[in-house]
């Protein structure tokens, strides 16, 4: 019996190695259709007109606060990889300036050298005419970051970004932190620049707020906490201008704040600043949305317990690649959810080393 088993094992082993050796023998050097991979990988002859490189424009609604810097970096990396001339544009304001973005887009629409446009769409309905005109002119379009579900020809336009529901991770993280620290009760607040009316940001607040309530309810601790996201669940209003002062005021006046969630790259560092000013580092379960050099530093100092990165590098890189493939190979639009990367003290040193955040 032992002899038979040993023989079977030898045969099986021989077959296994044999099959591996067979697979590595060079069958993938040519496609079944008979063409070589090198030929198939070549750029289409008609992709570049008159041998000139393709020109793409990437336009954002605020180029002035640094959040979109990794987006531009990602786009430039992809542009370099595919030999594309990239024009990086955006409202120069450090706060959302959609009219300026629209003005830039209306000019880009008429520029005959532009082959592809990547844009953010934070104001629902405002971009339909532009997309229609771009498509009429044969310019391919991709959107990123903020999502407009009603956009003209939405199903044929790729979107790279993060679903607002990812903010739920932040809400759950707050509850985990509170339970871990054995906090008996207090206020969990969701400050937001409500008058700005950014629908994407408001949706994040809703998602994080609901997740917090659900997690507290699941832990049977909801009755111990005040969970406040304002009357419409889109945030406790801290005014249109981002600054730590109103958040300091919230913490001071409520007196029992144990959790905070910032929904974007403006409010999150303001929360960190407020906590730092009040010397409450590591004493409040503070999480937020978006990563930047400042948030990373605040996570290290304990002013923030964590923040959710929406991988902005990908939001620049992927649309450029997508548009190139659309022009070169007529690859249909594909959406990419960049999801959320929760960065805490444990992994903060591993992210953003090469301008990715």
């Amino acid at each position, binding site marked *: 019996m032992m002899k038979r088993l040993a023989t079977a094992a030898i045969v099986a082993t021989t077959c296994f190695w044999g099959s591996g050796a067979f697979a590595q023998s060079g069958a993938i050097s040519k496609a079944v259709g008979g063409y070589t991979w090198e030929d198939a990988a070549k750029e289409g002859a008609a992709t570049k007109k008159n041998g000139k490189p393709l020109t793409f424009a990437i336009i954002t609604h605020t180029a002035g606060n640094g959040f979109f810097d990794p987006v531009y970096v990602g786009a430039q990396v992809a542009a370099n990889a595919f030999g594309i001339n990239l024009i990086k544009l955006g409202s120069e304001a450090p706060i959302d300036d959609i009219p300026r973005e629209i003005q830039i887009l209306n000019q880009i629409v008429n520029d005959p050298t532009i082959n592809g446009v990547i844009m953010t769409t934070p104001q629902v309905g405002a971009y339909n*005419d532009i997309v229609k005109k771009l498509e009429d002119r044969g310019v391919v379009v991709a959107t990123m970051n903020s999502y407009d579900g009603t956009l003209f020809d939405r199903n044929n336009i790729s979107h790279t970004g993060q679903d607002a529901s990812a903010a739920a991770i932040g809400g759950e993280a707050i509850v985990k932190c509170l339970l871990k620290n054995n906090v008996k009760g207090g206020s969990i607040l969701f400050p937001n620049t409500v008058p700005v009316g950014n629908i994407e940001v408001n949706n994040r607040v809703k998602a994080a707020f609901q997740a917090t309530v659900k997690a507290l309810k699941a832990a049977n601790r909801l009755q111990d906490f005040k969970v406040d996201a304002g009357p419409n669940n889109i945030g406790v209003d801290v005014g249109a201008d981002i600054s730590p002062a109103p958040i300091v005021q919230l913490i001071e006046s409520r007196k029992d704040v144990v959790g905070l969630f910032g929904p974007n790259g403006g409010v999150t560092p303001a929360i960190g600043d407020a906590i730092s000013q009040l010397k409450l580092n590591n004493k409040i379960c503070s999480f937020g949305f978006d990563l930047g050099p400042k948030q990373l530093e605040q996570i290290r100092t304990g002013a923030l317990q964590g923040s959710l990165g929406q991988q902005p590098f990908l939001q620049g890189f992927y649309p450029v690649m997508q548009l190139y493939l659309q022009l070169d190979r007529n690859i249909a639009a594909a959406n990419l959810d960049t999801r959320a990367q929760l960065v805490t003290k444990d992994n903060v040193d591993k992210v953003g080393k090469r301008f990715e955040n």
Partner: protein
Amino acid sequence: MTAPTNDASVRDMGREAPLLFGGWEVGLLVIMAILYAGGLYLNPAFFGSTDALFSVMRDASRYGVLAIGMTFVIVNRELDLSVGSTFGLTATIFGMVFAPTYFDMSVWTAVFWCLVMGLTIGLINGLMVTVLEVPAFIATLTMLFIGRGVILGLTGGKNIAFEIKAGTEPAFFRLGEINAFGFNNQIILFLIIAVIAAAALAYTAIGWTTYSVGGNEQAARYAGINTRFVRMRSYVLSSLCAVIAGLMSVAQNKDADPLAGFGLELIAISSVIVGGAAIFGGRGRVLGSCLGAILIGLIDKVLREGVPTTRTVDLGNGDTAQVAAVTQLPPGAVPACLGVILIIAVLIEPWLVRRRAIPRLWAWLRGRPPPPIPDLGGVAISGVQTRGANVQARGLGKRGIAAFFYRRDAAAVILMVALWLFGLWARPDFWGGLDNSFAILLAFSEIALLAVGLTFVMANGDIDLSVGSVLALSGAVAAVIMKDTNWGPLAAVGGGIMAGVVAGLINGWLTAYVGMPAFITTLGTFYWARGLGSSIVAGTQLNGFPESFNLIGRNLYELLDAMGLAPTGGLWLAIAKAVSVQTIFVLLVALIAGVVLAHTTFGEKVYAIGGNERAANFAGVNTRRVRFTSFLISSICAACAGIIYDAFYRSFIPTAGQLRELDSISSIIIGGGSIFGGYGTMIGSLAGAMVITLIRSLLSLQIILKDGSSFVLPQQWQNVFIGLILIVAVVGDIWLRQHNILGQLFGRRRVAEEPTHVEPVKEAKA
């Protein structure tokens, strides 16, 4: 310099507005006590402890220091709109000098360069106002633009953090920390500065000369006061106070935020006015301004309070939960309340003080005859400064192109053409095409529409700071009607325009009939209209309007198509697809407004009032009605812009129209309008709006080089470009056109070359 006599009347010049129990400041303290009591009721745990007091004082410290500097300027009958950007520049300069990621120098080197920067800005403001004779509003507005542009250009909009290095410099950064007594050290600095400034203004020659110049500059000059020096000193003090406030902010935040100081100029001005200073100069006290700043801080704190409540939260899948929370006023309530308080504070003076309401009430209660109401002065309080008449006189008899160069709007038209030609040179392949030309017109239409209405107001010698906020209010009203009612698009348009009419009625009535300065009235509306607009949409974005409404913001082809009149081919089709309905509307409104302003008696009355209101009044012009109507026109134009905004973007957000007031005022000034009134043409205002639009378009234009590579001009510096063009336009207008320095120079040369004609005359005179 000769100091005025040290008698009691001079010392009391800053206390000409007694109120309630003997002083304006007492009234402020009473209001504060009521507010504080409200806070105590809402949140006894916070307001019942010293925490609330220290918190209010800490936040008011920076406003207070800014307001102290502004007091010197306003008492001097001037204005400084640049303090917010000076505050922000302080943070930027400090951050760049101090932060390890930039120059990594010592904290005191950073402080030194901030003070140098503040001194420079103060001197530039002072020189522009006193030597170059640029109106204070324009000079400091320019500095605001340039300052904000420089901040954006230097930082790229990014925060400069230096928290870790700040830990190594406790001597400076302790300023922003809480001390052993439990309050922030900024409060001590604020109180020290307040005491020194109050003593200087009340008991030293600095104060007397400031009051004298603000009260009557001509009399002060005859009294031997160097008025130019006094006015420059005020600007320097204001800038230095802005630097100190900026350093306080840096010490507390330990970073430099590119948004630092954004909008603080209006908070500082509001503090001073609420504190009892007169916008026409000659009156104001440091104590009042400080209390005004504290009151604004307190309003912000109390209005953000609420009472405990329970909300039902939908968790999805039919699951709900009861959650404990705190009630809140709707978003925008704080600015709305600030605007109303600002207006009320200023109304107190003409209605309670100047009309002697309290003594009359007291007399009535005692059954005695009321004291007489003194002569209110009426139009005399307006600063009448007719300028530029000699320029137009020189242009009389000229024809064709020569006559054009004597027009005040010529420079804007020339600049507009030059900018457009630059675009054509840079991108001849598409810049001049039909589509791009109409795209530029599309971008221009919002600023242009606001500028059309504002031209009437400014030609009247008034100002309207509220146009951007009225745009937002009207847009909000129209959006809410479409979303929350089934009244339809026509009702939305009507509702939006009615909102504008109400704002215009308030602005016009308070300014023309009550006698409030237009700057203050419209600053109040700037706050309340935006706050109300934000409140009624609950701070959310509204969209999904009927497409029949959205046609207002589409191209002409879509409108004609909806009416069954769409062209099918040829040039008309191309034009219909390129031109927008809103562009046609704006040009039509501008045409009508231009005709009204230039060719009707109403337009002549507007210019007459702007040139000299008293003379116009004596000539039988109903000046109040004309000014009132001008405000109404301005607000209706802004309301139309709000409705177009909704249709064009197919949605509304509460930040609609933000900063558009500055764009439209700049358009008019660049277009030859005068901040003093009496001038301004529709062509000039439109050309000014186009100049601003073209600058922005060119700064996002892809310029292609010979080797095929391309680049875009540095967009971050656009505000610097606009600011420089603004100041060049104004200085050029004053010196090249009004003072005709070139003509004088060439005239002198001609005289020098022909001595035989001159010398006998001199001899004869001798």
